[in-house]
């Protein structure tokens, strides 16, 4: 890069460097994102001796700049001279690991974890491990929380003396004064346990786990539940009962609903981690209690896990456990006082039918489905309807159809348009499962009624729904059932309904194919070009542009072209605009 042209190539880099301290955050951010370009131009030596010291001290900057910097530094190893010099990146990342903004700290820790792998075992002990120690014994909790995430990456690669020190540091942080640090330690407990020797897991981790799980702060105890999963996975089955279960039982009955919520939320993971025997003896009663918890949030979280929990029960007596222990609780939840609980249950309950088989489903689950289909809360009914496919496989949907219909009709006419919107979205699915006859007989009128709903979002969804139905039932069905009705609306006195005709045509033309489009739809569209309302006329132009590709060339030239030309000289500006646009897009020349 020497010689006269050196100046040319230096200039952009010079700009980038100067903008590292520009007053405009966006420019600083851009420069930081091109840090590798700067480093490349400076060369490894100057990057190490000048750029990194400067960056180490720039922690005053905005979060987004610091975040970008923390990320860049994780990929900087080659730019400072390779693994041999990777430790030069530690000082800036160390200062980033102490800033108050969690996202920045987390990114700095992520980058530190990444570059720790590029340290040789010797460098790890000489440079990296002292940094972890400094952070772990820092004055401010920000640095100590960052330290928690670094123990597990250096532990496996250091000597046994250093390992002992690391374990000691981790222990200290687990009993730190500030809840922030204890939370960070609790959330890294599982990860740290994974890299420890089994003996130390039993001696060290278990006692830390027990202590954190009985911490005075709810927010610490609930994180111990998560650690429980990883710890239980590490221990041999015979030790679980003595080392983990007392704490887990305690957590499931914790005084704070947030901790119990966490247990409910992690229930499937816990179930897998402790294995079938403990599940049978301990988790089944615990799960029953969570389903009956006094706090609705906990019941809802547990209700969400019903299907997964039942699925993962040991197969030999799965059915018996569900029928005698779980189903009675589920029955109660169906008439819970809280609608979130009911709707959580409704979103999974149908899944039980595959597990329990046809007879049990008909005898025990069907009444529950039917009850939920009549629930006062629309979300519950919707959740049942959206999962109909599971039942269909087991008992066929006919069993349900008598109750299904009133539920659908009621949702379709719900006063809240978001509810109507939700049920429209399930229509294609329902149509597929109920079959064309049932649909024509019972549901077709609903689908047409939505086209004249007073909320635009519903009319729009209704058009889209028609398209999906045509894709399912075919063009012939469309021609006989829906096309006449849609085209009939073209004479409606309400111009919004006339426009709906156009929107439907836009959506349906492709699915209906050339013949129906040319013979039935096109004449209607062309006729509407004389509409009094300008909005209708420019939508005619837009529709013609849309259905043009479906039409044959003859129709385009002889019928579409004259109409568009007429519209292009319309008095209304918008009509002109869209007509001209259509002319330029369609192959009319």
């Amino acid at each position, binding site marked *: 890069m020497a010689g006269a042209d*050196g*100046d040319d190539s*230096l*200039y952009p*880099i*010079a*700009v980038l*460097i*100067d903008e*590292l*301290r520009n007053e405009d955050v966006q420019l600083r951010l851009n420069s930081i994102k091109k840090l590798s370009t700067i480093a490349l*131009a*400076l060369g490894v030596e*100057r990057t190490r001796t*000048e*750029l990194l*010291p*400067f960056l180490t*001290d*720039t922690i*005053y900057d905005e979060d987004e700049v610091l975040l970008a910097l923390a990320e860049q530094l994780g990929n900087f190893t080659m730019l400072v001279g390779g693994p041999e010099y990777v430790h030069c990146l530690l000082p800036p990342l160390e200062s980033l690991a*102490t*800033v*108050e903004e*969690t996202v920045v700290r987390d990114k700095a820790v992520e980058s530190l974890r990444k570059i720790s792998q590029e340290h040789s075992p010797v460098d790890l002990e000489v440079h990296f491990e002292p940094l972890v120690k400094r952070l772990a014994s820092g004055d*401010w*909790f*920000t*640095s100590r929380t960052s330290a928690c995430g670094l123990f597990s990456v250096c532990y496996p690669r250091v000597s046994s003396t250093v390992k002992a020190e690391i374990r000691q540091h981790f222990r200290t942080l687990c009993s730190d004064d*500030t*809840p*922030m640090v204890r*939370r960070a330690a609790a959330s890294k407990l599982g990860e740290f346990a994974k890299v420890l020797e089994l003996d130390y897991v039993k001696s060290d981790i278990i006692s830390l786990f027990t202590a954190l799980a009985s911490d*005075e*702060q*709810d*927010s610490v105890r609930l994180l111990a539940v998560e650690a429980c999963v990883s710890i239980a996975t590490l221990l041999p089955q015979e030790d679980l009962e003595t080392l983990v279960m007392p704490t887990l039982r305690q957590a499931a009955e*914790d*005084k*704070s*609903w*947030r901790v119990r919520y966490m247990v409910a939320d992690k229930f499937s993971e816990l179930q897998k981690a402790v294995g079938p025997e403990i599940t049978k003896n301990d988790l089944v009663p615990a799960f029953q209690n969570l389903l009956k918890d*006094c*706090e*609705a*949030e906990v019941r809802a979280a547990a209700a969400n896990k019903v299907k997964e929990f039942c699925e993962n029960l040991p197969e030999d007596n799965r059915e018996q456990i569900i029928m005698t222990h779980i189903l009675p609780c589920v029955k109660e939840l169906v008439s819970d006082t809280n609608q979130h609980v009911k709707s959580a249950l409704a979103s999974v309950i149908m899944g039980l039918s595959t597990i329990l088989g046809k007879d049990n489903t008909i005898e025990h689950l069907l009444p529950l489905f039917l009850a939920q289909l009549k629930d006062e809360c629309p979300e519950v009914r919707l959740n049942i309807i959206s999962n109909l496919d599971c039942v269909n496989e087991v008992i066929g949907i006919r069993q349900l159809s008598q109750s299904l219909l009133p539920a659908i009709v009621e949702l379709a006419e719900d006063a809240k348009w978001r509810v109507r919107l939700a049920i429209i979205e399930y229509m294609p699915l329902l149509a597929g499962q109920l079959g064309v006859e049932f649909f024509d007989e019972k549901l077709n009128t609903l689908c047409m009624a939505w086209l004249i709903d007073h909320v635009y979002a519903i009319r729009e969804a209704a058009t889209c729904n028609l398209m999906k139905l045509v894709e399912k039932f075919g063009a012939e069905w469309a021609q006989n059932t829906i096309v006449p009705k849609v085209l009939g609306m073209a004479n409606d006195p309400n111009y919004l309904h006339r426009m709906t005709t156009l929107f439907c045509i836009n959506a349906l033309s492709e699915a209906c194919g050339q013949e129906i489009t040319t013979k039935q739809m096109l004449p209607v569209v062309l006729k509407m070009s004389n509409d009094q309302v300008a909005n209708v006329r420019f939508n005619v132009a837009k529709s013609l542009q849309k259905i043009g590709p479906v039409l044959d060339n003859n129709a385009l030239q002889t019928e579409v072209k004259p109409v568009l030309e007429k519209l292009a000289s319309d008095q209304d500006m918008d009509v002109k605009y869209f007509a001209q646009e259509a002319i330029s897009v369609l192959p009319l020349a």
Partner: protein
Amino acid sequence: MAGPGADMQWCFSQVKGAIDDDVAEADIISTVEFNHTGELLATGDKGGRVVIFQQEIENKNLPQFRSEYNVYSTFQSHEPEFDYLKSLEIEEKINKIRWLPQKNAAQFLLSTNDKTIKLWKISERDKRPEGYNLKEEDGRYKDPNSITALRVPVLIPMDLMVEASPRRVFSNAHTYHINSISVNSDNETYLSADDLRINLWNLEITDRSFNIVDIKPTNMEELTEVITAAEFHPLHCNTLVYSSSKGTIRLCDMRESALCDKHSKLFEEPEDPSNRSFFSEIISSISDVKFSHNGRYMMTRDYLSVKVWDLNMENRPVETYQVHEYLRSKLCSLYENDCIFDKFECCWNGNDSVVMTGSYNNFFRMFERSQRRDVTLEASRENSKPLQVLKPRKVCAGGKRKKDEISVDSLDFNKKILHTAWHPQENIIAVATTNNLYIFQDKVN
């Protein structure tokens, strides 16, 4: 910590703010708060400004002149706004300031007006970058062709600069006026309370908060009480209290349920029928509630008294202190001039042995709990010579006025001390009169 407050002599240390008598509305101090070490003292005013004072490092040569507070940072925390949907003006007045426990070299505080809570970072900077490639230090641009080598900026020392920057804005969660904010001992969440609701926030999340208490009746005509103050327990992360305009305090346990509409304890003193009057309900309204530092007690302030409650006893307070009982006969005129609705705050000293609260005529009161002794002091320009000892004041309720006593009728009700703060470790107090901040300290012999 030095001895108790009441028999201790207090002396003047500093006064902040303008001297002249005509007070600008914007300069009226609306909140005073020490940080957790006492090194910093923040005030908020009706103009939406926050002023932070820093305690100077003690001067070894002049031990009696310890620890003056000087301005460290001043910034505009809130601006006046207009809610176009409700056609409501939103004042910029700072209702409350709360410091966060220190997390790194910077300091953080929450400040709130009626609607919006902001998290501010106050940080120091003592280095600045130097050296450009494309321009000289004085800003003149260089000829781009003259660049032959790249220059990386270096950081050089500069005069200390204190910056306040807004880090988070927590808005759109309160329909009514925010009266309290309180940081939880988990260092992760805080609460904000308005007249009818209490919301729980995560300090890092601004776009959502959880409503944990809602006392709004379905029909607003059935409204009989409002929330006047709320605070988290200093040690138990699950416990919070809120006081009401009916004179009750409810304690909620957040472990029991996600919604704390059902309180787990209700602190209420049965009304004394002999004192019953038209004003009973107004004067029993609680204007402030504060947990003691050790978490065992809480103190409430109503119009005429300060009460200390043991958290384990709900049916009556363990201590009741009369702040200005002589006003009981004046309630009618205090009602007419609206003073009866003044919201006096109260505070504990560092080891919970003394409580302090304000009164009228720029008087403030201290009650020493174990000795049951009290004192009335005055914040005034007249005795504002350095280290001048404050003379206890006495108000004469009626009958013959002794020498040195002030008659009730000559009290100035426009001069009121609503906001006071006590240094968390030392005997240093900050007392806000209308637009002045007085700092007093105990006399060092």
